[in-house]
Every structure is written in structure tokens, then in C-alpha cells.
């Protein structure tokens, strides 16, 4: 897997280098390797979908997509390196703190529509690589739209309480008793892919109900039903072969020949289809061990 990732980096290098040089300035701009690694993480973490208002023809990463939730409508922010509208003034420490603790550079809490309860598990190195990638992108002066939330969900001062209840900050150490692919799979599923944000049901306050980890929910994004992806034989993925799962993650194609649509169609298009075959295999190796839940 490592070797494959490096060869990918090497191939992407000529593409990335000019951008890095144009961006100029910081030490990060010169590190094309970090930008290339960050580009891969950017796909694995599925940043593009939420931070682009694709349907309205918005430029990539300029935000503005409306995320309709039971708590109100969130408008995703501009994450280009624009210093005024984007994250151009964020330091490395600011960036890490946002993902790890759900806190903005000004100290206010970020709403958990930004899935930092999952991203908190990302390693520092991955976070800085991701930042390097984002900062090598073109700054876009597109203003952010305010969220449309009703009290008490609009009260930011309550968010730290939510974080205390539903978030365990920091990466989870690899399980030495499990194969490397399993540990990589867990990292891809829980930290980067943030699969549980849709596939795990939520409590009334919007925290993930970890006792039903990946067991699916009837109240997913846009009111869609989200399937159970535990190893449960009848309700989950228990009967899916590795080939079935691989085909879903790579092509969006299910065993019955149906093609995933909705939110998962987008996840396949922007994220899982772009992973290396090794990473998809790691996701599968991990998912097959998720305790079955009805």
C-alpha cells in the first residue's frame, strides 16, 4: 500500500508542482509531496462534495451548499485559501484545532455539521498535508452565507457541551492485534471517510449513537434512508462478497446491478472511486468485522 501511495505521489508530482510554485510564500508551498498526499486525503475525506455548491454551478471549495438537517439548514463555508472569505489566514495550529477540537481560530465552536467528531481522529501529519493541498488551490473571494438555524441549535455557546458529550478528541492508536489493512480500513472508515456520520443513527441532540455503530438510519441526509453496513447477515453487508463491496466502492454498482444514487452516489463519485485498490480493500477488510447490528 505504501509503495503504491508513493508511486501515486510521484506521478502526480508534475501536475502539482506548478500550482505549488504559483502559490508561493509559505514553507508549505514548496512541499509538493505534502500537496500530493493532501490531494489524496482530500478525496478520501470527501471534502469537495459538501464544500461546493455543485448544483448552482459554484466554484469548487467555495462552499454555499445547503445542508438540510433536522436542526436547521447549514450553508457550508468557503475553504479556499482566500484570506477574507476562506481559510487563508489559518495557521497550522488553527487548522489542526478546527479538525481536532471543533474550534475556530477566533475560539468559537464550530457546528458539528462539519464532521469533526470523525475528523478528530486524523493524524497531525495528515491534517497538515490536507492543509498544504487546500492552500495550493486558488483563493476565491466568494462570501459565506449565514446558517439558517433556530434556537437552541443556533446557539454556538451550547456546542462545547455537545462536543463534551459526543466527541473523543484525537487519533485512535492502531490495534496491534489486527492486520495493518484492518487498521488502515478503520482509519479510512472512521477518520477520513466519516462513514458513521450518515450510517450511524443519531440521538435527539444529533450525536452519533455508537451503540448502533454503522447500523443505518431512516433519517439520513435529505431525508433519505441510509443502509446498515455492519456485518449483519440479513440487514447488513454480511452476505456481500469482497467483490460486491469492491464494486460498490469503485463503481457504485450493487450486487443486483443497481447503481447507487443520492448521497452515496456522490461519495462514490468524489471519494471511494478515487482511492487506491489497496485502500478500498482495507475498507472492506474492516467493514467485514463491524459487529452485526439489526
Amino acid at each position, binding site marked *: 500500500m505504501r509503495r503504491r501511495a508513493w508511486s501515486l505521489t510521484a506521478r502526480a508530482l508534475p501536475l502539482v508542482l506548478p500550482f505549488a510554485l504559483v502559490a508561493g510564500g509559505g514553507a508549505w508551498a514548496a512541499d509538493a509531496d505534502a500537496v500530493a498526499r493532501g490531494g489524496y486525503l482530500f478525496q478520501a475525506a470527501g471534502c469537495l462534495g459538501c464544500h461546493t455548491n455543485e448544483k448552482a454551478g459554484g466554484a469548487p471549495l467555495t462552499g454555499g451548499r445547503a445542508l438540510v438537517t433536522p436542526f436547521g439548514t447549514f450553508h457550508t463555508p468557503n475553504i479556499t485559501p482566500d484570506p477574507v472569505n476562506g481559510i487563508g489566514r489559518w495557521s497550522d495550529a488553527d487548522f489542526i484545532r478546527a479538525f481536532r477540537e471543533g474550534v475556530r481560530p477566533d475560539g468559537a465552536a464550530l457546528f458539528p455539521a462539519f464532521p469533526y467528531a470523525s475528523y478528530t481522529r486524523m493524524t497531525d501529519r495528515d491534517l497538515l498535508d490536507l492543509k498544504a493541498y487546500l492552500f495550493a488551490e486558488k483563493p476565491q473571494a466568494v462570501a459565506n452565507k449565514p446558517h439558517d438555524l433556530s434556537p437552541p441549535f443556533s446557539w454556538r455557546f451550547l456546542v462545547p457541551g455537545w462536543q463534551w458529550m459526543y466527541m473523543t478528541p484525537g487519533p485512535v492508536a492502531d490495534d496491534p492485534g489486527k492486520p495493518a489493512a484492518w487498521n488502515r480500513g478503520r482509519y479510512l472508515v472512521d477518520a477520513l471517510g466519516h462513514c458513521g456520520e450518515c450510517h450511524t443513527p443519531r440521538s435527539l441532540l444529533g450525536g452519533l449513537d455508537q451503540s448502533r455503530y454503522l447500523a443505518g438510519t431512516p433519517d439520513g441526509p435529505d431525508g433519505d434512508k441510509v443502509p446498515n453496513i455492519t456485518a449483519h447477515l440479513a440487514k447488513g453487508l454480511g452476505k456481500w462478497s469482497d467483490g460486491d463491496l469492491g464494486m460498490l466502492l469503485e463503481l457504485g454498482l450493487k450486487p443486483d446491478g443497481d447503481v447507487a444514487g443520492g*448521497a452515496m452516489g456522490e461519495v462514490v463519485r468524489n471519494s471511494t472511486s478515487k482511492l487506491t485498490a489497496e485502500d478500498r480493500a482495507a475498507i472492506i477488510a474492516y467493514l467485514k468485522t463491524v459487529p452485526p447490528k439489526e
Partner: protein
Amino acid sequence: MNNRVVNALAAASLSALLVAAFGGMAGAADPADMVKERQQTMKKLGGGMGAVAKFVKNEGGTLEDAAKGAEAVLAVAKMDAKAVFVPGTAVGVGESAAKPELWQSWSVAEERWKAVQPAAVKLGEAIKGGDRAQIAQALGATSKTCGTCHEDFRVKKQ
């Protein structure tokens, strides 16, 4: 027979003809039946895709079945979008999973439907070639054409 009876008979046979003609065009007159028919059509399409996938996955599928699968995909792709997505068969009718947006953005939907056909032709050609990697690639391209529509115009089912 008096005139009134003749007129009534003529009107009745004319309406029977009209129903037969238009009913035949749409496949079925009742919207709920049309939805069922669409589901059968989609099942045929999915069955074809599944047969190719089974070969690509190397899980016991034969090249011959894959070829039949691609033929089924192509046969459905050749159907007129208007005959498959008859107006008045959006979600709420029977077990329809088609969002009303499909008809509101008809030109987009129709264009996407039409994109399946060339992909299915290439899929058939790849199968004739017999190379698994190329078939996988063509299968991916075909499923992408399905996915674009499902993403925007289908209500999630479970």
C-alpha cells in the same frame, strides 16, 4: 336501432380504440401499472449490469452470461425515455422512486438516459474482446451513466 343507440355505440368503440391506442403507447394506462412496468424495465437493466459484474468480479460469472447481460442493458437503453418515464408517475404513485425533478429538468434527464446507450454499446464490444480489465472499465463507464440520474432524480430506497 335508433340513432341514439348507434351514436352511443360509435362513441364507445371510438373511446375503446383511443384507450387501446394510447394505452398501448404508454404500455399501461394506470399510472401505478406504469410504475410497475418501469420497475420491471429497471430490473432488466440491473440484471444485465449484475451479469456483467459477476464476470468482472470473477465470482463464477461466464463471459457468455455477461454478453447476454450487456444485450439486456442495450435493449433497455434503446427505449424512449418518454415511454419509461411517463409524466404523472413521480414518487407517491405506487412504489415510484422518481423525483418530480426528473420531469422538471426533463432535458437533462433525457440527455442522461440517452447517454446509457453508447456506454452499453461499448460494454458489448468490450465483452466481445473478452479482456476482463477492459470490461471492468466499460462497466464502470456504464454504471456512471446510471448513477448520474440516480443521484439527482431518484428517491433513496432501502
